[in-house]
């Protein structure tokens, strides 16, 4: 198991549940036991929960695994087969599950600048939480889900928050133009300034810390149109890239992550891939889609492990359509399916102005995606209709 976050842990569980009784080695580049990432931008950042509550393992859980934590994989040798680690160790294996996830993209030119953050790991969240504790102005670069959640949390903590988004409408990729506009209107409802359609040129590094003048600290975010937005803290929420560099030259086919079949198989027998680094084939879409959602990292390892243990002979039922949630400004946002293939969006319940909406996306009359804002019951009903296996 290369990767010790939700996807790796879920794969380890699936192996034991499906009867694998041999040696199990879990390799993780972070030094932490598996923890839950979604609360990092919400309850953990707000200080409502602590680190113990992030644990993904139950107290009495024992997967009988060897955990190699703080160990980064640097190469896969398909001939032995084995995984090589940064410290020179080599782990032999009969089967390999690749679950190395993704890493937050950073803003070019801001390396080493204090006050500029990304949010992906527990260590990132600790740093951001500590800085937000001293108050001040936060500028969030990127109006996606991470950016919006941090803006929501920071505004509730009393910060003056500005969100800068390069696209004309935030979230138009995952939600489409119309509903992206509806969801991102939450910012203005709560006094958070949203600037759209403008790129970021850089971050001014002449800010001052509260303890005196310090060079090399963020002072303002510089926009393409010449504006400067004063900032004490900057968060870059500009997406993530799959961590697959260590597989270059291994023979495992790469294409926007690890290229996989609809059951997690890679181009190399005995090697499967799951989670954010895995670009699974989606039979319904007829294309590969790399899904970066929590639920994918939890559900798909079951299928990939069945593939691994059966040598590819198992034909597990296809995964459910992708599902994710987001909590912003006290509103529960849920989405399932793919917005990109839709030719219409209809409000089935509620009203956008009330921030209480159930919207159904259709292609040629068939529901292909559903969005809910504070509509959990109706959302589940529509979500079931997206699922071919529920028919």
């Amino acid at each position: 198991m290369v990767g010790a976050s939700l996807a790796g842990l879920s794969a380890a569980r699936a192996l034991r549940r499906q009867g694998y009784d041999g040696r199990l080695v879990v390799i993780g580049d972070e030094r932490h036991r598996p923890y839950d990432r979604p609360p990092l931008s919400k309850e953990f950042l707000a200080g409502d929960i602590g680190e113990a509550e992030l644990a993904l393992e139950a107290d009495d859980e024992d997967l009988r695994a060897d955990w190699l934590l703080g160990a980064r994989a640097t190469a896969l040798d398909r001939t032995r087969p084995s995984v090589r680690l940064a410290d020179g160790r080599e782990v032999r294996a009969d089967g390999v599950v690749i679950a190395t996830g993704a890493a937050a993209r950073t803003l070019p030119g801001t390396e080493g600048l204090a006050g500029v953050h990304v949010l992906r790991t527990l260590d990132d969240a600790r740093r951001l939480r500590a800085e937000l504790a001293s108050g001040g102005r936060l500028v969030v670069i990127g109006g996606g889900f991470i950016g919006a959640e941090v803006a929501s949390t920071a505004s509730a903590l009393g910060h003056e928050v500005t969100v800068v988004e390069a696209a004309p409408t935030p979230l138009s990729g995952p939600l489409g133009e119309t509903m992206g506009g509806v969801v991102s209107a939450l910012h203005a409802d709560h006094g958070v300034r949203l600037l759209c359609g403008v790129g970021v040129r850089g971050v001014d590094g002449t800010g001052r810390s509260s303890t005196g003048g310090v060079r090399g600290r963020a002072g303002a975010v510089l926009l393409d149109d010449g504006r400067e937005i004063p900032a004490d803290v900057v968060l870059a929420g500009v997406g993530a890239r799959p961590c697959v560099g260590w597989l270059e030259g291994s023979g495992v086919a790469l294409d926007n992550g690890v290229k996989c079949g609809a059951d997690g198989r890679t181009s190399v027998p005995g090697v499967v891939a799951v989670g954010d680094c895995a670009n699974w084939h989606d039979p319904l879409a007829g294309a590969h889609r790399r899904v970066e959602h929590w639920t994918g990292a939890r559900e798909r390892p079951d299928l990939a492990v069945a593939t691994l243990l059966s040598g590819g002979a198992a034909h597990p039922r296809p995964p459910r359509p992708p599902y994710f949630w987001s909590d912003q400004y006290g509103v529960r946002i849920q989405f399932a399916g793919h917005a990109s293939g839709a030719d219409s969006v209809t409000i089935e319940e509620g009203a956008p102005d009330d921030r209480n909406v159930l919207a159904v996306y259709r292609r040629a009359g068939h529901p292909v995606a559903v969005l809910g804002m504070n509509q959990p019951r109706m959302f589940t009903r529509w979500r079931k209709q997206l699922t071919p296996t529920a028919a």
Partner: protein
Amino acid sequence: MIPACRLADLPRGEAFRLDSDPPVSVFHTDAGEVFAIDDTCTHQDASLADGWLEDCWVECPLHASKFDLRTGAVDAPPAKRPVRTHEVVIEDGMIYVQLSTAAPNLPACVAARLAGAGG
């Protein structure tokens, strides 16, 4: 025993939420069995009656932990604690629930709210 609803008014695959404190939900499975469990997910404030019912399991509508309607057990985090199960009695077409006397496993935010409300 608390009357919930008439069996005829609860189609298979549906759930009925009782506004007890804490709330309890009655599920009518596709196989025709009726179960009652605490309605609130033990992880966060979400109503299991809004969840995805399949066989004898209900999946939390938010974060996908599944609870066994027969035992209350949870399959995997983010929820880590079971929900309580309650005895169900059906008499003259009416569903009654005998509430468990065990302490409920409520998520921290809900437990705090109930305590604050003096309940």
